[in-house]
């Protein structure tokens, strides 16, 4: 992505870039560097003892693992929901469209309480799942369920506009050339929506890593089993151990940032492949 000074919609590349940096610095970089500064009050040994303790490692595994799982589920079903919303006209479509955004609007604690009520052993879902021997509330699976709930809108909302742009005649052309529906999907549709899908996945994943409110109710918070990393940050704060809390948070941040960077590069690359395809 070379910025060019010739093609400009907004005025003055220098000015807009400067403003962007200023804004990002003010809103993101300065608060985050303050966080890292707090961590520096620890010695290396203290830092290491904090972030590499079995309990914290188990929490990292759960937070990142469950977030990844939830983002994957959302990618598959989000694509499906977006497809249905874009390609079909049916009664109640506006309602479904509005429902998609609901997890954004709901306070996370409300979401957590509601999900726990549904999935606990006497809840509407939990009752039947338990009969099959599947426990959701107070298990890692419950954490995944909560994170899936809060991440749902991201994929739908990122893929939807792309699908709307996509003309149906491309698919028709593929069909007339004898492609099977599956082949049309993998060769025509998927490449076109892939970058958007990846964005949606990333957003859902990033959002889920740091989620606290909806998870603490359904996880049961058992050490080494269902403690999420943000909960351990809170327990540190309860001990007024600000440095320890920021150490755990800092590692989460770095890992998240690395993952987001990888996904972004992947997106660039898939974008380029898309652009480079012979018309």
């Amino acid at each position, binding site marked *: 992505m070379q910025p060019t000074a010739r093609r400009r919609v*907004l*005025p*003055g590349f220098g*000015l807009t870039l400067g*403003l962007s940096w200023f804004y990002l610095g003010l809103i993101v970089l300065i608060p985050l560097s303050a966080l890292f500064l707090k961590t520096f009050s620890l010695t290396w040994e203290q830092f290491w003892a904090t972030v590499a*303790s079995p*309990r914290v490692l188990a929490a990292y595994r759960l937070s990142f693992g469950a977030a990844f799982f939830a983002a994957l589920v959302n990618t598959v079903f989000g694509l499906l929901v977006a497809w249905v919303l874009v390609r079909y006209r049916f009664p109640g479509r506006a309602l479904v469209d509005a429902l998609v955004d609901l997890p954004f609007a709901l306070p996370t604690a409300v979401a957590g*309480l509601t999900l*726990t*009520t549904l999935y*606990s*052993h*006497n*809840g509407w879902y939990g009752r039947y799942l338990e009969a099959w021997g599947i426990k959701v*509330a*107070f298990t890692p699976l419950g954490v995944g369920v909560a994170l899936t709930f809060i991440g749902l809108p991201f994929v739908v909302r990122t893929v939807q506009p792309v699908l709307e742009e996509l003309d149906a005649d491309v698919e028709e052309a593929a069909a007339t050339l004898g492609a099977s529906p599956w082949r049309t999907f993998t060769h025509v549709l998927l490449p076109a929506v892939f970058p958007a899908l990846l964005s949606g996945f990333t957003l859902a994943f990033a959002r889920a890593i740091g989620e606290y409110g909806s998870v*603490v*109710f359904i996880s*049961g*918070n*058992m*050490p*080494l*089993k269902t403690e999420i990393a943000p*909960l351990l940050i*809170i*327990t*540190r*704060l*309860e*001990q*007024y*151990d600000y440095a*320890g809390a920021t150490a755990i948070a800092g590692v989460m941040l770095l890992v998240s940032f690395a993952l987001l960077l990888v996904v972004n590069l992947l997106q660039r690359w898939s974008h380029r492949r898309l652009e480079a395809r012979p018309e």
Partner: protein
Amino acid sequence: MKTHHPPLTAPLLTVLLAALSVWTGCSKPAAAPSDAATLLNVSYDPTRELYADLNAAFARQWEAKTGTKPTIKQSHGGSGKQARAVIDGLDADVVTLALAYDIDMLHDKAQLLPADWQSRLPEHSAPYTSTIVFVVRKGNPQGIHDWEDLVRPGVSVITPNPKTSGGARWNYLAAWGHALRKSGGDEAQARQYITALFKNVPVLDSGARGATTTFAERELGDVLLAWENEAYLLTQEVGPERFEIITPSDSILAEPPVAIVDKNVDRKGTRALAEAYLRFLYTEEGQEIAAKHHYRPRSAQAAQKAGKSLAPVKLFTLEEVAGGWKQAQKQHFEDGGTFDQLYVPQAQ
């Protein structure tokens, strides 16, 4: 505007300048003269209803005395979280929290009040007290009467996480204190008791209200450990036909303390009002309101007058069983403390 500037620059700059001016405008401390009659009381979760009544009664009294009507604002949340908010600059005139440790931290971390804050008001700055009791399902199907029943195999106990909840720390220390006193001060036996107790805890909610929900709505557990005032609220609100309260033979004297935040009242000029407000909690009227809300008042007269017969229970103090909050926090609740040692291994 210079003409060679593209047209978008002007609005962009305007927006930015407007944003900046709003932003700097907000950060100016606004000292209105009416501030002297406004108090912010930063409190913990279960005191919502209590202070709604206390504030109204105090406002009436203060207005009768001085002619100005004071405005008292409330803020509620987890005790530790509230203390951190005050440390980070929430402008509290008074704090009314769940444990002295949280107020100690206002001194240790930000010097907002003197180290000896607790000796400034009667009864180590705790105008009302409470204790830890058991809530069981109606009819007490498990036959739970005292602490020993909680560690029987097959009994499921609901209590929140002492690492994240102030109330849960009182629960833990009540159990610890009971075991310690029963064994004549043998720590090894107290540790055994805590180990057995937490073997029976299926989930650890992060706060007291969460634990109550788990017990009442999800119907998990046979017994809930709770503050006495919360237990009465639960049985009254959710219905006495579903739960009953069991008072154990002995329990801890829970003293939720109150304090003036010196640095803030001196800056705002609200010291006189804040002091009168906290003194009011000790008056007969204040004590009666506390009793009405199921706290144990310091005044026996008020307890009688409220017509509340809280079950007799032998109360021991935190100092007797853990040597004060700072020591209790260090020994039991910090990372690697007794709670971690006894609880984490069994989770593996």
